[in-house]
């Protein structure tokens, strides 16, 4: 991976997007469950936007997997 000619493939990019989106999704939910978010604001618009972006990233990641070894 640290080779000077290595480049990410669409599949690897998809995997990274799935991991990133998944971690963000779980993180936002955990953040709220553990009561770390604004106690008065609850699950507000910021979290909803974050969730939507994370879910989109996850879906894009999944859709990239079938593209295989094509350079990203």
């Amino acid at each position: 991976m640290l080779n000077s000619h290595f480049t990410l493939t669409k599949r690897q990019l998809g995997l990274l997007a799935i991991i990133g989106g998944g971690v963000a999704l779980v993180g936002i939910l955990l953040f709220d469950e553990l009561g770390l978010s604004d106690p008065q604001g609850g699950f507000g618009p910021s979290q909803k936007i974050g969730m939507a972006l994370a879910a989109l990233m996850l879906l894009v990641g999944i859709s990239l997997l079938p593209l295989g070894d094509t350079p990203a």
Partner: protein
Amino acid sequence: MQTMFSGQWGRWQQVFVGLALILVVLHFFIYVYYSFSLMQFPFDYDQGEGFELNDTLYLSEGKSPYRNNETWPFYASNYPPIYHVVLIPFVWIFGPEYWYGRLVAFLSTLVTAGTIGFAVYRDGGRRREIAALMGFAFLASNYIYHIGPLFRQHYFMVMFEVLAVVTLANALERPQQRQRLRLGMGLLLIAGYTKQLAAYTCAAVFLWLFIRNPRRSIVYSLGLGAAAGLIFLILNIITEGQWYTNIVAANVNQFIMSQFTGLLKQYVRLHWPILLLAGLLTVYELYFARLSIYAVWFVVATISTIGAGKWGAGDSYFATSLAAACILAGIFISRTLNQTWVFPENYLSRPFLNMTFSPGLKQSLGMLCLILMIIYGVTVVKMPTSGAVFEPISQALGFEPAPGHRYPLYDAAGWTPGYATIGHLTSQEDEDSGWKIVDRIRASDLPVLSEEAGFSLQAEREVISNPTQLLNLYENDLFDPKNLIAVIESQGFGLIIFRAQFYPEPVLSAIYDAYIPQEVIPMNGFNYELWIPASDWETRRDIRDYLNKNPAEALEVAIPAEIEDHRSWMFSMMDRWGWTPVIALEAAPSTECESREFIRLAQRIEIRLCGDKLIFQP
């Protein structure tokens, strides 16, 4: 042009390109007229310009503008120095003036537009007319028009961001790869030290580099991070920590979701044709080609616009996303007109690969792109509605300011929190009013506290305080206003000039106690309030301090001779400090003294008004 626009379709495309170009060039003429008109205005056109000039003055004298806000003159800058450093030679030659800061900011938007055009030409299929169209389209945006020629550094930063990204875009395919990468990194460093917001472009660049080659991304991000960190450390040591306080900590402001969503809706409503084309190219690159730096930058810059919801932020936060969108949209249009789209076989393209598209359909897609650009040219309409040139034009077109709008300006953008509805021409009355305020400053023997630095600079007086900076620091528990309040309470300022009363609450409270409003001077759509020392403050101060001590013993004070209505003076003073009069159920016995009781939380006090004396009895 001949080969590019051949046949009947070609002629129609020529007409549509011509129409789109005419529209954006007309916008450009309005922009140039407004910019040169603004350069002649000698005061703050928009809040904050004078402070940028003051930062430049500090640096031109070899002084640091990153200072302790708690000591005289209670002033510090909250922006990095590159823009101000570039302006230093102008200060040495011309003294403190607004025009050169505005000129440099205006020129930086032209350089940005030129670079966008260059990128579209180089990376989109060498179509000069589309390159020009997208450069002018960037300048036609309402967001660029109204802020572009202000004495502010934001678009100076955008210029370096665009130069960096366009330099890096094909760096990996060039023989002089290292030199180009280093140059790009250098430009990013300069962008970051022009304004902190460039950090998002740095993130986009390293994400793109990571996709292309993780090794290079790690090496160059470590290199840039080390250089930026070292400069940061040196500046922080030199300024004894004030660099971090004023540049980083002071910029952590309250996030207002409605401001962000309002601006986002406005951004999409005004720029949707460009955003649509940019989005399509991004999706194409994601599934059918390699991701370009422009696509990654567009996505990251658009996500970063969430920062526009911060208190004090605004529509300028969308400029980077718009610049990226203009490049992508230009490449999309060029490829569509050149018919150079390639769809490699994959699970998404397979159903369409065996289909044949008629040349007419392909050509009409190019026409559709051009129609979108014409729609964009009509959507972003804005112009001043005053002056010898624009008054008759706006009347003929039926353009007039929105109801309740403070300026002679038609702006299709409308208004949403965070959007500055400026872009109008100033009048001779505005200038005369500004000089009237300057004369009032000159007439004062004592220093003057002004919410705008411009008046003090024109009067050749020291600029004292930067109200929004003090407010930001105060909100973050980083500013103790006691020293500034002490000067106010000792009436150390001969005059206080308010525009929006942005000072922290305790500072405003001290001013309301020790000063009284004397005159209101309207200028450039705002009412400037001039407050002078209150003659009865010494007496009221003794009373306030006595009441705050929760006293056990009585106090007798003489009412100042200039007070005519003793009773209303007493009531308004007690009301100001939160004391409520107790309603008397029985008529007071007729004596020569009037007695009233007041309460504040658990405190109770009786006040007897005897002629020109007030006697406080706990």
